[in-house]
């Protein structure tokens, strides 16, 4: 699949819609109601498989959205013009690295005995 501006736009919009769902959930569940976050609570939630799936999807959408967004922000500048292609690849690499790192964090997590 070639990455075209049409695709970037679609990715940006679709991920935005997905984020509306995940972000709301995330904010409500994790950051709100405002309480002291400590290790034990996080551990309990992150251990459940269903949350693992949700978190991976969240990660996927937020990463694509953020990287596509940063790509657009940078390529808007005249000076970046010649490096658009390179920048695109950097974004893809960053995506792979962060997605792998994030997924590993989520999956590898084992509640301590």
């Amino acid at each position: 699949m070639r990455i075209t501006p049409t695709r970037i736009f679609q990715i940006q919009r679709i991920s935005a819609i997905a984020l509306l769902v995940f972000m709301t959930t995330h904010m409500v569940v994790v950051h709100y109601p405002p309480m002291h976050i400590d290790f034990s609570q996080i551990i309990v939630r992150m251990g459940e498989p269903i949350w693992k799936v949700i978190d991976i999807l969240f990660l996927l959408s937020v990463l694509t959205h953020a990287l596509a967004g940063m790509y657009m922000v940078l390529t808007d500048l005249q000076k970046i013009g010649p490096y658009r292609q390179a920048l695109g690849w950097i974004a893809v690499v960053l995506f792979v690295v962060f997605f792998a790192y994030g997924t590993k964090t989520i999956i590898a997590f084992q509640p301590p005995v």
Partner: protein
Amino acid sequence: MYKTTGFFSFVLRRVTGVALALYLFLHMWVIGSVNQGAEAFDARLATVQSPLFKFLEIALLAAVIYHAIDGIRLLIVHYFDVAEYRKSLFYAVMVVSVLLGIAGGLPMLLFAINGG
């Protein structure tokens, strides 16, 4: 700069978007340490638990709220022919963002001040 409501919302959206993206990477770095055991995690978490960060977290919430609501506005403009209501839409986004921001931010603020 050529200043209109459209320009203002664009700048806000862009600033919040970039800020959120940068925060995202920081966030992942913090969370990533869960697998290195409780100590490492708590250590990293501690750096982001200082009062300063509490306030930053409120700013973060505000940013997410504005960015998301404004994003919805863009989706509406894309799918419906409403460009002529652009000014009203902008004000609607501001009002909704402020209301949601207060609803979400005030308890956090109180929590931060009272120290939980």
